[in-house]
């Protein structure tokens, strides 16, 4: 929706309003350039906190943050957090599948970010070109009457009823054209941080420490994994759980703090769980 707004006025310099950004890559590039950094791992680690800060701020202020966009932001936020976490620890050997997955995630993020940067730059050039070309107006005048009169007489075989049928078909609101991959799951299920926290709480309260992998192995999709991660961070902030990680990039073990009895997921910050949004329409009815 926000995409349709004419924001022809290119923001000069860095502005802090997330609405000015066209998606997560745009925001990320904006943050990186604000720090006058190139796209590197260091740059990503540097801007990770700000990136997440912007998402939070935006979610806190604007209910129009549609879920499919939010999920893209969250996936990137999760990747950034992973990268930052990995960087804070001494460089280690690639030890297991999770390390490999992290490296792949990093490379993919770099590739997509650079690709987006290239298109953004080209888009700027196209915009300048279009503006320059708009100064020229093509001659496009109606046909001189003497020639218009020479046009062959129209063959007309449409009856009023056929014509009405055509009109009905043309005026019928069209279904949005299908995209090739169903993204209904992004709209269909709102994954709530609070609900996931409750679920995690029930599992952890049984007393056995559980690894992050165990806690997420039944997650239906990436979004649920991300939301469970966020839920754990919230629970950590509430001091109801503790983390234990034996080695760099090793298993993350989550442990219930024995002295917490009265914790309830209701204390989870409101900022995530706005009233479950109705699934945003894919496209304006047409």
């Amino acid at each position, binding site marked *: 929706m926000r995409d349709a707004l004419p924001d022809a006025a290119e923001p000069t310099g860095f502005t802090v309003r997330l609405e000015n950004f066209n998606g997560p890559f745009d925001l990320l590039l904006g943050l990186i350039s604000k720090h006058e950094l190139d796209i590197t791992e260091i740059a990503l680690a540097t801007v990770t906190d700000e990136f997440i800060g912007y998402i939070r701020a935006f979610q806190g202020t604007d209910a129009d943050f549609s879920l499919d966009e939010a999920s893209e932001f969250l996936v990137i936020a999760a990747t950034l957090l992973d990268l930052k976490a990995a960087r804070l620890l001494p460089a280690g050997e690639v030890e297991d599948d999770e390390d490999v997955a992290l490296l792949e995630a990093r490379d993919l993020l770099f590739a997509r970010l650079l690709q987006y940067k290239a298109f953004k730059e080209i888009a700027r050039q196209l915009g300048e070109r279009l503006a320059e070309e708009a100064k020229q107006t093509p001659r496009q005048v109606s046909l001189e009457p003497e020639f218009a009169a020479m046009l062959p007489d129209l063959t007309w075989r449409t009856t009023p009823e056929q014509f009405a049928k055509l009109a*009905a078909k043309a005026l019928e609101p069209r279904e949005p054209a299908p995209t090739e991959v169903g993204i209904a799951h992004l709209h269909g299920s709102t994954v709530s941080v609070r609900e996931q926290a409750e679920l995690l709480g029930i599992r952890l309260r049984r007393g056995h420490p559980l690894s992050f992998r165990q806690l997420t192995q039944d997650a239906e999709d990436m979004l649920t994994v991300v939301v469970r991660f966020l839920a754990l961070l919230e629970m950590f902030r509430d001091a109801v759980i503790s983390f234990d990680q034996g080695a760099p990039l090793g298993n993350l073990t989550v442990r219930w703090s024995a002295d917490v009895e009265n914790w309830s997921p209701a204390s989870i910050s409101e900022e995530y769980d706005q009233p479950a949004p109705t699934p945003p329409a894919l496209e304006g009815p047409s």
Partner: protein
Amino acid sequence: MKDHQSDVDEPLFDASSEPGGIKAALEAVLMVVDEPVTATRLATALLVPVDEVHGLLVELQQEYDGYTGQGPEGHTTEPASSQPRGFELRSVAGGWRIFSRSTFAPVVAKFVLEGQSARLSQAALETLAVIAYRQPVSRARVSGIRGVNVDSVVRTLALRGLIAEAATDPETGAILYGTTQYFLERLGIGSVADLPQLSPHLPGLENLGDFDDTTY
């Protein structure tokens, strides 16, 4: 708001200082306007006295017709510069407009008629149907309903005399189109009110008005 800004900007543009000067500026306008335009309007737009504009228009007319018209030294009878152009500047209905030169009418006619079909394309018929049932209606709204740009189809329908400019939207200034008497004759009905009702069971047709324009 925007108007104010351009009011302020306008005096900054001085056509006489551009290569070709006021005369070329007149040509630029005349080449792209559809309706004949008066010397007064041209003078106002260019901030030049009407007399001067009128004099320059006559000069252009003569240049196009093959007189050199280059001021005092113009009477050198150079054959090259005395060739007429393929277009001419005519004063019609109180205004000026550039037309193709009538000597070349046979070539122009041949070109125009080539590939002209006597039948309307499916896209043209559907666009006509939308205009017929939603008139008076702007091109932007028809585009919105059809999901594609309809500019050239609308031109064809107007050229064919099936639709015509009916009004101007009081708010946006957009041209609103409606069907013509000729359209009614071709369809074999007496008036727009005689168009068959659209099937009532089609969903949501009544409330179409609201979202067609939103993306514009």
